[in-house]
């Protein structure tokens, strides 16, 4: 909202304002070209700001919605060890959502606005979370494949041109590697377990493989935002490049697991020094994106319900804070940093 008003006020004065804008743009372009970082209070093109808000909001929403498919299994984890791991992982996803919301807020968008848009279906989250988690092995497949694909996407984002986004990604990537390893270990245990367990692991990989490949987004020639995002150094690699990198990483890992990937066309391409893989069903991707995936409705409904049911907690905390007039900006607010020393 604030960004819109700022934009409108600059239109009034001609000439000098345009020159100032050109000078600002030159400074911005030079910073991006020099691999410098853009920080919240720097001037930036409105389209750059809007593009970042769109991407970071989608990313944050994905972390929050992504808690649901795995949280379904917390109460049914097969051991205390696995249960503790899964709870820690789901808590991490909440944390990742909060890092990203904070980073998005530095662009002048409020937390409330972001959540409202998610609940109203006006901002997206990754379509991967519209698939169901049918068995315990799905928790493993999500960790190995879904988090693996996310890491492949996210590691280059640590060098994103927007400082707060890049810093959030550094923190997230550090934590994600535990997510991927626990999933891999879980699948390994099942794969080497009873024949039924092995079959369950294979079935989960079969169902999650293709949706994981779709996480990298549409092919380069059909990707709406890719070229501009790469010019701005928000993205560093194309969708297809990252997808291929992911396939190369997964093929030997699947061999160690003793599981197969559900694509008969995967083979080593000597000439390219990479793996070839089969055609992706992009109509499925488009359908899930449009809201016709197996769980779209369920995920949003549950998210809205959680938000509404938590309203009394937010109201009570705000009322308590008001009563003790400890809110910042009001008389009596602490001017000194509050310190808690362990």
């Amino acid at each position: 909202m604030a960004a819109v008003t700022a934009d409108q006020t600059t239109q009034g004065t001609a000439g000098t304002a345009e020159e100032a804008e050109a000078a600002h743009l030159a400074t911005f372009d030079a910073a991006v070209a020099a691999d410098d970082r853009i920080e919240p209070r720097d001037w930036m093109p409105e389209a750059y700001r809007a593009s970042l808000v769109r991407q970071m909001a989608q990313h944050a929403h994905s972390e929050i919605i992504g808690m649901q498919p795995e949280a379904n299994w917390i109460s049914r984890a097969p051991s205390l060890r696995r249960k503790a791991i899964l709870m820690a992982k789901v808590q991490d996803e909440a944390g990742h959502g909060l890092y990203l919301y904070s980073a998005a807020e530095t662009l002048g968008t409020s937390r409330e606005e972001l959540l409202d848009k998610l609940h109203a279906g006006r901002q997206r989250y990754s379509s991967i979370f519209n698939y169901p988690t049918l068995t315990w092995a799905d928790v493993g497949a999500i960790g190995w494949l879904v988090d693996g694909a996310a890491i492949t996407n996210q590691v280059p984002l640590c060098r994103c041109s927007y400082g707060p986004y890049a810093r959030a990604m550094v923190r997230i990537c550090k934590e994600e590697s535990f997510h991927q390893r626990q999933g891999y270990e879980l699948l390994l245990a099942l794969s080497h377990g009873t024949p039924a367990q092995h079959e369950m692991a294979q079935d989960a990989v079969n169902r999650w493989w293709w949706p994981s490949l779709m996480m990298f987004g549409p092919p380069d020639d059909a990707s709406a935002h890719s070229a501009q995002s790469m010019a701005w150094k928000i993205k560093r690699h194309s969708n297809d490049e990252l997808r291929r990198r992911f396939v190369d990483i997964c093929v030997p890992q699947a061999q160690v697991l003793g599981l197969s990937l559900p694509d008969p066309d995967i083979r080593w391409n000597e000439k390219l020094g990479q793996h070839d893989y089969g055609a992706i069903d992009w109509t499925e991707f488009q359908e899930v994106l449009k809201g016709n995936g197996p769980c779209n409705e369920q995920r949003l409904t549950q998210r809205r319900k959680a938000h509404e049911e938590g309203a009394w907690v937010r109201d009570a905390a705000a009322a308590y804070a008001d009563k003790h007039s400890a809110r910042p900006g009001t008389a009596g607010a602490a001017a000194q940093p509050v310190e808690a020393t362990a």
Partner: protein
Amino acid sequence: MSSSTDWPLWEVFVRSRRGLSHTHAGSLHAPDAEMALRNARDLYTRRSEGVSLWVVPSTEITASSPDEKDSFFEPAGDKPYRHPTFYEIPEGVKHL
């Protein structure tokens, strides 16, 4: 969807271990200072990243403007003699 507005924003500073200063880790929303500290613990020290936390209302921070960064920091730009590398010392001189 929600009737109430966002809780205030707080900046979080974490001392990773004794002997080091607090470093900015990020920000969060909380209704008051006490809740901000608890949220900061859950959000920024899940893996023992800190032994001490500060939370500061974001509105209490005064920042220099990025637009004036050249003129604001310029006075230090032409004073290389403030750095030890500015001085040429004959070879072999020790402890200097």
